[in-house]
């Protein structure tokens, strides 16, 4: 057992080294650095559209990014359907019936050619939206996770990354339906993932209260961020890819800078006591929109860490939120079965 003791000591020393190295570069705080910046004025967004059609709780939504579908989005509900919406007309472009209704996540491929979803079936199902006969069919069922699928994001039409309740994330080859890389390291269910704007990295948030930055091609974990006091449910990149935002059951969101390798600020308010379910950054990164268990979305000035607005309009938990790729609008999805478009 001598080796175990030595390894434990070595691990503790390395952890201390990391803490020290982070302190060394902490020559100021974000709060001090932005002291001269004026707080953003009150942000009041209005519901412009309500997307009606799901018959049960909505668990996820994702905007299309391609210029042909920048106003399209896909949503997943436990009514067993994936719906692709034209948010300008509120028309349903596709209503895809799922084999398993226990869906927890959905994603739109950057090309607009495919959507994906998964949940308690432990699988990620890929659907081809541009099939020859116009019918939307299952293209692949990616099965290897031994726990629920919490999140999935396409890199391109042939690769997708998934996160799971089995504590791992997987990079898949969609053509062959096999695992290219397994990203292991989290000690709790992986709840959420986000891909960097340059598609070289991704971040994952888990029930071990940490967020991890992964190098997709090197297949390594580059950095681990702690600080949250409960499960991380939501994660996203600051638009320039240099920082990460997390949302947790501890009722706070945090901003971590990747190059300084540390937390810059916490978004919290003594009046907020419920968990964060979802988050999205506005185009410039100045606004952080976060959905909470108390049915509201709070809008934060990301630099000053103060609340500057609220989106109140849902009659149940806001489970998902996304900002369109051109930054024109934000979409919220709720357990009340509706999606709302705001700007």
């Amino acid at each position, binding site marked *: 057992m001598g080796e175990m003791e030595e390894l434990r000591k*070595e691990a503790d020393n390395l952890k201390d080294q*990391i803490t020290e190295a982070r302190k060394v570069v902490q020559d100021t705080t*974000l709060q001090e650095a932005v002291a001269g910046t004026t707080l953003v004025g009150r942000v009041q967004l209005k519901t412009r559209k309500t997307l009606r059609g799901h018959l049960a709780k909505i668990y996820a939504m994702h905007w299309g990014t391609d210029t042909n579908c920048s106003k399209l989005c896909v949503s997943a509900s436990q009514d067993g359907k994936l719906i692709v919406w034209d948010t300008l007309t509120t028309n349903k472009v596709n209503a895809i019936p799922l084999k398993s209704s226990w869906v927890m996540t959905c994603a739109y491929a950057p090309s607009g050619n495919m959507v994906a979803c998964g949940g308690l079936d432990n699988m990620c199902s890929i659907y081809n939206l541009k099939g020859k006969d116009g019918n939307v069919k299952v293209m692949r069922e990616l099965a290897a996770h031994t726990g629920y699928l919490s999140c999935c994001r396409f890199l391109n039409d042939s690769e997708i990354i998934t996160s799971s309740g089995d504590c791992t994330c997987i990079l898949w080859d969609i053509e062959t339906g096999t695992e290219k890389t397994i990203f292991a390291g989290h000690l709790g269910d992986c709840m959420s993932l986000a891909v960097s704007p340059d598609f070289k990295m991704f971040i994952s948030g888990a029930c071990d209260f940490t967020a991890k930055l992964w190098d997709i091609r090197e297949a*390594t974990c580059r950095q681990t961020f702690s600080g949250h006091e409960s499960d991380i449910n939501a994660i996203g990149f600051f638009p320039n890819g*240099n920082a990460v935002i997390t949302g947790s059951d501890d009722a706070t969101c945090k901003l971590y800078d990747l*190059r300084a*390798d540390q937390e810059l600020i916490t978004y919290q308010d003594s009046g907020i006591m419920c968990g964060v379910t979802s988050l999205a950054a*506005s185009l410039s*990164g100045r606004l952080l929109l976060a959905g909470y268990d108390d049915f509201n979305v709070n809008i934060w000035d990301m630099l000053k860490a103060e609340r500057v607005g609220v989106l109140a309009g849902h009659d149940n938990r806001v489970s998902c939120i996304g900002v369109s790729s051109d930054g024109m609008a*934000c979409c919220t999805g709720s357990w009340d079965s509706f999606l709302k478009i705001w700007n």
Partner: protein
Amino acid sequence: MTSNSNVANMRRLVEQLKLEASLERIKVSQAAAELQQYCHQNAAKDALLVGVPAGSNPFREPRSCNLF
């Protein structure tokens, strides 16, 4: 769990920590300045931040028929 796999896990953790410890870090002042700069540079294009004039908001119902 056998004691062998505990040691193997511990070895993996130590290797991972070595990797994370070797990172080159920049100063918080530089990180904060660059985040702030990105926000300012892109503020004008951020519809949720600066608002969208009613006439050019694709999500608003048009009040009249305009021919452009």
